[in-house]
């Protein structure tokens, strides 16, 4: 009993460097893909005179697509690798989470080879997200973790509900009216973003808060410009949000996410930062196994990283300003 508890409470901060590097690479590649492929190449049409810049446009577009393939290659390793890491750290909760991830990975693979239908794949995806959220809450047993992670999973599952309902109908099951789930997902999704700084409680310093405010202001201004059209358009494209809420909500959400990301990065919780970034690049709801994979990897990374953040909170001085300028990404191994 005691041994198991030891394993749970002290999960061993160090991640195998390959995984840390892979996670960082994945977060960066997916962010690049989000910015270029999903954002720039689709909004460039709104830039006057872009047609004259066809060549740079095509180079960028090609680069964005390449980033997509890099991200998906990394993802194919990242999902099993993070699942394995969780498993090998022991304890029923981590192992249960690892099993869920394996289920998702298996279904994605089967679906890619056309051996599994969408109904099973989509159920497995939403299920994995839900299990990871429950698992993370169980591991940390803190409301500051349970609330934001739960909200994210809630939004994801609500948004998936519509697709699942329609898939069920396609397979001959009863048709449910699930349209309102989409609006609910939107509200819960924004609530998640607004609650996300809770995750960084204790490591949220002034600089992070300031950067959050700057980002919120920038987003707010972006919403003001051209009546929020482009901003809402990007939301829809990238996060699966329809932009029905007032713009302050989205500005606040972006600010909170940015502040938390900054806080994680500044407190040397690179792994948590990478995890959160993956939730953003993956978005809410079912889009593709690629985006779902990003979300699931992100949640798994958070499940591993958040206990460390909580530890750090207990000893606020620990490591905090040790070496601020070290830009080493995810949870650089403290060995040596």
């Amino acid at each position, binding site marked *: 009993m005691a041994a198991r508890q030891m394993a749970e409470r002290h999960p061993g901060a160090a991640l195998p460097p390959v995984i840390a590097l892979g996670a960082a690479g994945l977060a960066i590649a997916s962010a690049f893909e989000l910015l270029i492929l999903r954002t720039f190449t689709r909004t460039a*049409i709104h830039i006057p005179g872009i047609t004259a810049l066809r060549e740079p446009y095509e180079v960028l577009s090609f680069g964005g697509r390449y980033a997509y393939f890099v991200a*998906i290659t990394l993802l194919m390793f990242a999902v099993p690798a993070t699942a394995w890491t969780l498993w090998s750290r022991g304890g029923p*909760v981590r192992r249960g989470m690892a099993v869920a991830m394996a289920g998702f990975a298996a279904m994605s693979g089967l679906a890619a080879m056309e051996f599994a239908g969408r109904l*099973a794949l989509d159920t497995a995806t939403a*299920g994995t997200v839900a299990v990871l959220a429950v698992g993370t809450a169980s591991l940390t*047993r803190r409301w500051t973790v349970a609330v934001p992670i739960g909200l994210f999973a809630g939004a994801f599952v609500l948004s998936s509900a519509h697709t699942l309902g329609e898939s069920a109908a396609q397979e001959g099951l009863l048709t449910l009216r699930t349209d309102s789930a989409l609006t609910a997902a939107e509200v819960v999704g924004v609530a998640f973003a607004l609650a996300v700084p809770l995750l960084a409680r204790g490591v949220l310093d002034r600089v992070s808060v300031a950067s959050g405010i700057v980002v919120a202001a920038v987003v707010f201004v972006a919403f003001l410009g051209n009546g929020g059209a482009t901003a809402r358009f990007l939301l829809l494209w990238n996060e699966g949000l329809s932009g029905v809420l007032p713009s302050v909500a989205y500005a606040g959400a972006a600010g909170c996410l940015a502040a938390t990301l900054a806080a994680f990065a500044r407190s040397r919780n690179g792994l948590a930062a990478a995890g959160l970034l993956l939730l953003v690049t993956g978005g809410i709801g079912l889009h593709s196994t690629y985006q779902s994979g990003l979300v699931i990897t992100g949640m798994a990374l958070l499940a591993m990283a958040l206990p460390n953040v909580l530890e750090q909170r207990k000893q606020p001085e620990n490591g905090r300003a040790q070496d601020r300028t070290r830009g080493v990404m995810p949870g650089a191994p403290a060995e040596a």
Partner: protein
Amino acid sequence: MLLELVKRRRIAVGVVAVLALAGVLQFTNTNPAVSQTLYLTAYESGKDPGLNPSNGAWKDAVAVRVPLTAQLGSYAAGGGTVQTVSAKALHYNDTLYVRVEWKDATQDDASTRVEDFSDAVALEFPAKTASTVPSVCMGQADAGVNIWHWRADSDAGLKDPVEIYTGASVDGYPSTDTLFYTARAAGNPYANPDLGAVQTLVSQAFGQLTTSTVQDVQGKGAWANDAWAVVFARPYTSEGPDHAGFGAGARTDIAFAVWDGSQDERNGMKSASQFITLSIAGAKVPGGGGFNSTAVILGAAMLIGFTALGIGLGVYGYREGKR
């Protein structure tokens, strides 16, 4: 020291391997990811669905309800009146049939008065199937889209006002040659009284929508019980440049847009969906609301498994917390 070096080299090799593998995937256009958007399956129909939206062939096809949102991305933004379209698809004799239905309390099928705008619906396909979808917003420079645009007023036919206002008294027209219908004389397809109900368009960017040189999509709409139902039909293969291609077993993407004329919706002022997956199944439509048992059983298994796992972890965590 040596160990570090070996490790580094391994990492470098790993990085190179990942980058190379990504390159191979891109080069061979292999996308290991599976779309998880809504999907619409076109089964083979037992009989010719024709263009009549109330043809019995549609009875067995299952509809997917696709959410629409107002187009707020670019000028002229607007729309949002219609929030859902219900889409069905079938194929018959190497022709793809798509049937769309949506609620609209007013039948706006004339644009006679300056304040009259027509109800309309459009389907959008990527010009070529690729691993990544083009911008749903009229395509992008390196990934075009093919649009099938049905307009209620085109379906109803183009008339001169004197043919509509039969009580009007007119002294006469000096000439009614085409030349004096300026837009018609200028070759504007929408000014042509012989215009079909559906226009095929291609686009590579917002504001660059152009009528295709090949018009091979047929369509017919019917309004009843406060709803429009419109059928589109096109053979799998098309001669048109940048036209979407289909085939049994193939998979592509499809997006929808709806205009409500009574709300002055036209052009960018529309309700539009994101791309969803359209797959063309080789199989016959599973008749009588066909029940796909394999899919359902597998899905149910997943549902039960994950729910059990979730509850288990939750309960365990709760108990541990109590201790």
